[in-house]
């Protein structure tokens, strides 16, 4: 059993949106729907300012708020720590969308089912990397097992002192280098 997570190095991200497009293709999403949202913020004080591009998707929270509020148990966490939505159980009440601290969920307008990043479970089951990771042109994304201290991601998190977006909003499985 693994505890899958991701590290995103925003210093390497050039904002090319390749991850978003590959995600849309992998998950067969329409053009206007995406599981990855790009946020651009300015930090620092003049003249030492920088422009940060931060791709945000489902953070796969531990004790996910979306999972606890879901009245139908459509949202669940796999043994490998991936938060998923069972499309056969979702009624589209949007309680999870209201509760998500990262506004990472979208509603499918054809079926009404609420969806989000799935860490490409099908690819991962085949031993492959999620689509956003393998397509990233600047290797800004690393995917792997957070519980394995020898995995590439665990070492990188230590090396770059990567942190969740907001630790005070709860533990997540996506770490950012900023």
């Amino acid at each position, binding site marked *: 059993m693994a505890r899958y997570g991701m590290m995103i190095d925003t210093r390497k991200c050039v904002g090319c949106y390749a991850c978003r497009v590959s995600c849309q293709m992998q998950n067969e999403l329409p053009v206007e729907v995406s599981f990855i949202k790009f*946020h651009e*913020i300015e930090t620092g004080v003049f003249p030492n300012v920088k422009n940060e591009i*931060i791709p*945000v998707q489902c953070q796969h929270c531990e004790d996910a*708020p979306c999972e*606890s*509020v*879901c*009245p*139908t*148990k*459509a949202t669940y966490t796999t043994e490998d720590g991936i938060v998923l939505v069972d*499309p*056969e*159980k*979702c*009624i*589209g*009440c*949007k*309680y999870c*969308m*209201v*509760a*998500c*601290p*990262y*506004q990472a969920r979208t*509603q499918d307008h054809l*079926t*009404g*089912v*609420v969806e989000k990043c799935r860490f490409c479970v099908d690819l991962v089951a085949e031993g492959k990397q999620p689509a956003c990771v393998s397509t990233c042109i600047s290797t800004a994304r690393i995917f792997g097992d957070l519980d394995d201290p020898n995995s590439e991601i665990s070492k990188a998190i230590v090396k770059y002192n990567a942190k969740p*977006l*907001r630790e005070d*909003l709860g533990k997540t499985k996506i770490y950012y280098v900023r």
Partner: protein
Amino acid sequence: MVWGTIIAAYLFLAGLSAGAFLTSSYISRKYPKAVTVRMTGRLISPALMGIGLLLLIVDAEAGLKNPLRFIYLFTNFNSVMTIGTYFISFFMLAAFYVALMELLKKDVNKWVEYIGIVFAIGTAIYTGFLIGVIATVPLWNTAILPILFVVSALSTGIAGTLLVSGIVNKQVVHQVISVKKIHLSLLAVEVFLIFTMFLITSTSNEAAAESVSSLIIGEYSMIFWIALIAVGLLLPIVIESLELINARKMSQTVEGLQVAAAGSHSIAGTLVTETSVLIGGFTLRYLLLAAAVPIAFL
């Protein structure tokens, strides 16, 4: 706005329905002769809840297309929505039974009515907890919100019951003076709760402050000050106070007693008051959903 006007209307109708049920239970004990008011409360309660539930079903698109999925609503006891589903189910069963007995002119089993009272209160509280437990939205995430929703539910419940009763039979409204007194104090408490909530929550963090300022000076300030505060709260407080003063005067003079006995005085005040309370009740839910600003995570 993930949850919009439809959900605001549902929250309003659920509170109104629960409030109407409680009003009719109170009336049936305190004023056994006020049959019209009691009947009205008992009949509108399940009808309004039914409309509210239809709105919910329409809003839950995936369930609308696969209705059997709604059974799963009973499965997650960690979710306030599941708890609410149980409350509403028991409340609806009791409210339907009571309404049916009223139509058949049979005696209502008092234990069923007590169960109805308990779950009516539960339904009113749950609408507040539903959004109150969302830590992501600081405007909602306050302990005072469920209390505000219960007070508003009772006040709209009384308003809905008296409005419909008044239209049906204009004499009955003056039979139930103590309800008017309760109504007036509920409205005053509501004003206090709204301003307490805004004052305290706006100091807690940036997102909360943003929500509150959008309501009192920003995007939603016109709706807030006119529809909620002026029309929904202050206007009914003023008219209701005048009516109560007038009612006291009438009970002290011979002419007044004659007018009261004849039932020939106007109920315009009641109609205006109750309508504006209902406008205020819906506006409160709408504004709280519209002005929800989530915590900034970057």
